[in-house]
């Protein structure tokens, strides 16, 4: 690559120094440094397949242990009955459904970054969107597991699917759960396709750079003979754009339909009109917080400090803060409509949340999800890795509690006085399976990042080229024009 920049010195890669210090806040760090060459991007990403830090293997071990705990709990629950999870006839849903909503929520950030910001030409997304998109797929897979775990007879889950059967019986298309099955299934399929399609050029690079082993065969198969010709790129651009448009609609409709599981029921506390936007924004919020967590982990684990850099983190944190504020507004609005509404049952329900058996958790969730994100408003904390790590985890705990507070106290205080006195504390089985879900999700992410390009090489090169053109124009003194599209 001919760099039209005079001082073309190699970028310093003192990763140990960069690890936790971050870069000084005053430095004018761009989302992509023009000093990196195309070949270096390729070699960095290809090398990430081979030598992650040792902590990677420890993380894998921890994940496997977490999954083992959950599998043990699930086997116990499967053999004995759902009763061991300690739910009751009033509090029938509990942690599983809350976690289902949580994981579907986490999936939304990936779509926001990869699809919505792709349409708006937000170039800073280019280093983070690939693993975010992978998070979408894996979070949906985790959410799907919770559906199975939640069902009383999971071995007959295929009854929900409308397939031409011998019995002449169909699933009930009027049920929001069937809409869920349709929309979440579509979302999972489409996001996997989107992830794969976006990865084809990078898989071709892997195919060319790895010369033996099962990976060579895998990449050769998956790259589908991509050679980067003008015909490939031209059609790829349009197809990718179309896919991202579909994905945005799908993400919005996806969580709206999940919210209709609640909003379509007659249960006071569920039966709220503003649930769809509330859920969608809550999903983006918690998903972005999870994105920050994974950002920091991957940056360290796979030595992606140059690509997942502080400027990108700052933008990510600002985005999360904005979403948190929108979510706060919707949360307050939701309570206000109940407060000023005529539905006494719903109002009692709100009182119960704030003062009843779950009051402590409710206030904790309000603190974590509403007050904590304000830390993100301060510039000095925006690029502080330890602070952001802890904060993003806290926000995720808060948003998980939010889902749990939608499910558990609401069912514990219904229309009918008979339901009032039961408050069920989930047993170790529920907690064990929830614990395992994080291990399962993390394991999938870790394996993905080791096998597939966790950052998008070709988009990084485009960004890099644009920054080079900018730097060149800045040097030469010409007016800066847009380099890459």
């Amino acid at each position: 690559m001919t760099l039209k920049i005079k001082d073309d010195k190699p970028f310093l890669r003192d990763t140990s120094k960069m690890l936790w210090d971050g870069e000084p806040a005053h430095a004018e760090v761009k989302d992509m440094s023009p000093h990196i060459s195309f070949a270096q991007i390729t070699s960095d990403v290809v090398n990430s397949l081979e030598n992650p830090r040792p902590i990677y293997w420890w993380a894998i071990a921890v994940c496997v242990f977490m999954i083992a705990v959950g599998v043990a709990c699930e086997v116990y629950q499967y053999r004995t009955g759902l009763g061991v999870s300690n739910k009751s006839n009033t509090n029938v849903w509990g942690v599983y459904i809350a976690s289902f909503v949580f994981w579907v929520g986490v999936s939304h950030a990936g779509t926001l970054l990869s699809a919505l910001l792709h349409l708006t030409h937000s170039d800073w997304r280019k280093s983070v969107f690939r693993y975010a998109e992978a998070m979408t797929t894996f979070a949906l897979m985790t959410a799907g597991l919770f559906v199975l775990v939640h069902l009383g007879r999971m071995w007959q889950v295929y009854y929900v699917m409308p397939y031409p059967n011998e019995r002449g019986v169909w699933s009930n298309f009027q049920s929001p759960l069937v809409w869920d099955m349709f929309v979440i299934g579509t979302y999972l399929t489409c996001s996997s396709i989107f992830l794969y399609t976006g990865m084809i050029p990078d898989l071709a690079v892997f195919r060319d750079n790895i010369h033996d082993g099962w990976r060579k065969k895998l990449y050769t198969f998956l790259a589908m003979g991509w050679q980067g010709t003008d015909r490939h790129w031209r059609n790829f651009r349009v197809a990718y754009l179309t896919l991202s448009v579909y994905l945005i609609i799908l993400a919005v409709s996806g969580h709206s339909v999940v919210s209709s599981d609640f909003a379509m029921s007659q249960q006071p506390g569920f039966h709220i009109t503003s649930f769809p936007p509330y859920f969608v924004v809550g999903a983006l919020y918690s998903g972005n917080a999870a994105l920050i967590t994974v950002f920091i982990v991957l940056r360290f684990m796979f030595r992606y400090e140059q690509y997942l850099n502080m400027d990108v983190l700052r933008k990510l944190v600002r985005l999360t803060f904005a979403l948190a504020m929108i979510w706060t507004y919707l949360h307050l609005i939701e309570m206000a409509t109940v407060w000023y509404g005529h539905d006494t049952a719903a109002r009692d329900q709100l009182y119960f949340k704030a003062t009843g058996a779950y009051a402590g958790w409710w206030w904790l969730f309000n603190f974590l999800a509403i007050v904590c994100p304000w830390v993100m408003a301060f510039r000095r904390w925006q690029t502080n890795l330890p602070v952001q790590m802890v904060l993003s985890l806290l926000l995720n705990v808060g948003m998980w509690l939010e889902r749990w507070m939608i499910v558990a106290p609401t069912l514990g205080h219904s229309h009918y006085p008979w339901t009032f006195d039961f408050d069920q504390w989930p047993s170790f089985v529920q907690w064990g399976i929830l614990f395992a879900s994080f291990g399962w999700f993390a394991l999938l992410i870790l394996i993905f990042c080791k096998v597939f390009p966790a950052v998008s090489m070709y988009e990084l090169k485009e960004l890099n080229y644009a920054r080079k053109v900018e730097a060149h124009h800045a040097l030469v003194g010409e007016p800066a024009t847009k380099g890459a599209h």
Partner: protein
Amino acid sequence: MHRIFLNSIVLLVGLFAATASFADSSTAHDGVAPSAGNAAAAAAVEKKGFIADYDNIFIVKGGPEAKPTTEIKPLEWNWVDKLFYNPMGWINSFTDQLGPEVEQPIEFPHDRHAGDPGKVNPDGKTGDGINCMYCHTFARRSLTAGIPPLRKCIGCHQNIPSVRDTPRIVKLFEYWDAGKPIPWKKVHDLPDYVRFNHERHIQRFVFKQERPYKEVCGYCHGDVASMTVARRQRTLSMGFCVNCHKKNHSLDSTYTKAGHGPNDCFMCHK
């Protein structure tokens, strides 16, 4: 002398039991409170006379002479059902739907008893043309068709000395002398959680629509009159039931009630 006396008493008891089992046909089901309605119901039963009396058991309505026998046809499939809505049922209709061969304690020759009198069976004998409901008496008035009690077999075979020494009849009398029921195996074993009602099907198709009983029973059980040991001929799956229930079985053109079978899950599953 002693033996003949004893046997005649047994025959009398058997006949009485058989008659009594017809007489109490209008007994209300368990759990139903006795009420004034039941007497009226019984009277209505008498007046209608749709339950055959014992003398005319061989020529109950729906016997071979009632209407010309129509063929037992498989389900009719239209192309939409074949393509979209029940392709599996359609595919199953091609495959072998025979159930497993059930080994019975005594190889009961259905063809000898129920077969056509004019037709020679593989064993060289003709059938007797006995109505199915002569032995399976419960079919017309309860959920289950019922296996005849041992006394019913003895009741006839007591008086048929010509076959008294054949191995199967010897075995039959062994059970009788030991005072034990014959442990028949179930052939048409429906899936659990479903309760097929013989009564309504027999009442409607044999007694109301006056179809030949061979066609009605044979729709699900196959041509039992040509088998020795009965064997399941149809899948008897839910699709088999549902497809038939969707069809229109109007009694006649003036019959205004729904012509199809009940479409209510609670009818069979409860």
